[in-house]
């Protein structure tokens, strides 16, 4: 098994603003990384010691107090001194553009300022760490190939009608129903072993399901494979030149993290990567 990416999120100096650091820590965890958060008021030496002890791939520094021009370079020096300068260092906070340029010139790999998304950070870390580890692989790792079909999406004209077949005739149990407003969809999930049948009814004539039915009629809409990390699979799809529909993982039905590959790249089947997010 491949080792997950390990990240140390650190608050150097005296700054107490940790909303950003906490959100990034939680978001990177949800993106499948192992994250250690140092807590407030860490000296540069403490951070480097923790990074070495925890054998991390990346240090994320957060500072909103204006001390970044002293603290970030000091951390790079300390890493050098400890022979740990292979660790990727990124930063974030209230950092003006001129300082961003200066810090990047000194060796901070990237600075994420207010408005950056955790998804961008996760993608950045993943691509750089993979390069660092030198494990860019052409083929998928068989160990992490999907083990199960999470669900099969079926576009239906009317949920009530469809349930007469799936629930009343086949006898499958409805385990969950949900509105997905941004997709204009009402969905019902029926249990079949580890897999769900997801019945999709459009709530608007402009929604994707309505358009699908108008073009191709009701029927199988997509197949969703359960994976460990949607973002890694997206990255893999992109690097193999597949056409992806989502640039970044997003939240789908039942709060799972999902992303789609276009049918044109999957032999006519709309294909979904689907990751269960641990609460």
């Amino acid at each position, binding site marked *: 098994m491949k080792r997950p990416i390990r990240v140390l999120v650190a608050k150097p*100096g*005296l*700054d*107490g*603003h*940790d*909303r950003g650091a*906490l*959100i990034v820590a*939680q*978001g990177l965890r949800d993106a499948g990384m192992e994250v250690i*958060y140092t*807590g*407030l*008021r860490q*000296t540069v030496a403490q951070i480097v010691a923790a990074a070495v002890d925890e054998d991390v791939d990346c240090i994320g520094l957060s500072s909103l*107090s*204006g*001390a*970044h*021009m*002293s*603290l970030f370079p*000091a951390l790079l020096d300390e890493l050098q001194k400890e022979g740990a300068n292979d660790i990727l260092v990124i930063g974030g906070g*209230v950092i*003006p*553009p*001129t300082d961003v340029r200066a810090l990047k010139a000194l060796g901070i790999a990237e600075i994420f*300022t*207010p*408005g950056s*998304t*955790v*998804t961008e950070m996760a993608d950045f870390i993943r691509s750089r760490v993979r390069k660092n580890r030198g494990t860019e692989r052409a083929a998928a790792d068989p160990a992490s190939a999907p083990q199960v079909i999470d669900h099969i999406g079926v576009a239906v004209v009317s949920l009530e009608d469809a349930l007469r077949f799936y629930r009343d005739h086949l006898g499958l149990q409805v385990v969950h129903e949900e*509105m997905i*407003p*941004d997709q204009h969809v009402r969905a019902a999930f029926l249990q079949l072993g580890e897999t769900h049948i997801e019945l999709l009814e459009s709530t608007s004539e402009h929604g994707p399901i309505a358009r699908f039915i108008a073009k191709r009629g009701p029927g199988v809409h997509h197949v969703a494979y359960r994976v460990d990390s949607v973002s890694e699979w997206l990255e893999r799809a992109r690097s193999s030149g597949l056409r992806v529909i989502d640039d*970044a993982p*997003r*939240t789908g039905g039942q709060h799972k993290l999902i992303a789609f590959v276009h049918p044109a790249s999957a032999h006519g089947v709309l294909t979904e990567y689907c990751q269960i997010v641990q609460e």
Partner: protein
Amino acid sequence: MANESYKERKEQFLTSSGINVQRIYDWTGAETADAYEERLGDSGMYPFTRGIQPTMYRGRFWTMRQYAGFGDAKQTNARFRYLLEQGQTGLSTAFDLPTQIGYDADHPFALGEVGKVGVSISSLLDMETLFAQIPLDRVSTSMTINAPAAVLLAMYIAVGEKQGVPGASLSGTIQNDILKEYVARGTYIYPPQPSMRLITNTFAFCAEHAPQFNTISISGYHMREAGSTAVQEIAFTLANARAYVDAALGAGLAIDDFAPRLSFFFNAHNNFFEEIAKFRAARRIWARIMKEEYGAQSQKSWQLRFHTQTGGSTLTAQQPDNNIVRVTMQALAAVLGGTQSLHTNSRDEALALPTEESARIALRTQQIIAHESGVADTVDPLGGSYYVEALTDEIERQAIVYMDGIAAMGGAVRAVEQGYMQREIQAAAYETQCRIERREDVVVGMNAFTVANETEPELLRIGPELEEEARIRLRDLRAQRDQTAVHASLRRLEQAARGDDNLLPPILEAVRVYATLGEICDQLRGVFGEYRPQHW
């Protein structure tokens, strides 16, 4: 309901606190005459939903109090005098992080932080410079200082003494709210119990020696900045307020001796009506707690007086001029909510400390609301709005559910120690971030309506030479002052800390002989220890 010809653009309309907003509000549930007396009351009348004074801004405008401070005491003194000349009516002091955490500017932990987020104050000498040519009997000064609040207050009193202004003529506010530091802001020093003692000592000392001083500003602002909802903001703040009242009563103070000097500090965020309703709900809840739960007799004890600052975390680094518009709406919400004083943020605060020009636009924003818009000409102009009253009731209801929950845990100090508020806020903050990343929440200029090439605005820069100058000033001070007097005063402080005496008199004595902030705080560190938070 789902009439196709009246389709709405969203399934649900929710406020920041998750309150479901109806399509239209009507007289159903509106106040009857009896309920009006009970739930609203005229301004200046219990339960003060409509405002704490009868005339509100018809008497005088809110205090326009811009938070300022950067670099050394000399630079900040110049900014203060500039703001006063520009028509600002009160001062508000930002201290740098070493000062806020009780380290002198030459301490190793101060590296890179001196003068960055506020002014650097290491001793009475710096404080004298900070208020040079500013007569302390004619200006009210707010100081954002918490863990070492007693020390900075003592320095302020000592500057007053040098100017010939007695304590009784000093007015202002110290933030002095340690509980929210553990929850959200992070500038704690000591563990909760001795910190609570420092706070009640300050209450007692000021009741006698500086009766015009607000001894605490119980703050929801930073919890909101950390990501709480509007309901959580007032619920956690008022729960913390209860803890301070309980501590003061436990220390033997009489409720009406200190409660009139309690003040509050809230955020003015984006959801306009929710914010207005929040301020009104907070006033009503507090009045009832003070009168009915604590049996306070003085009207002044029932009145929730508050300062407001517009929401820093709502500002975007992208297209920073858009922030002027955000700040205007937030400031208007604070005024319509009946604030006593207001700070409007500068447009460039997501990038750096504000420039002088940005700070001036922020102040002008308040002046335009006050002098041109006409909104200050009647009291509580939105009182009786079906929507605002319904929101006020709902926020009150939800806040009380939270507060009862915290009481059941054993009060705010226990809840903070167990990380309860921290976890609630973190969950709300993460949810907000996810909504923004999924573009369910639109942030104009950031995740929608973006421009390709942002121009780089002019920014204020604090030079590193400041740190060296501060170090030299401290070295000279330590060489010139009466060393014996300093050591004696620090020894007396330590003895007092080990016993039960009020700590303010020995702190004041140490400050007068130029013991430094770091020396005083270290003396107390030796007795009280330091707070170490638990981490997940």
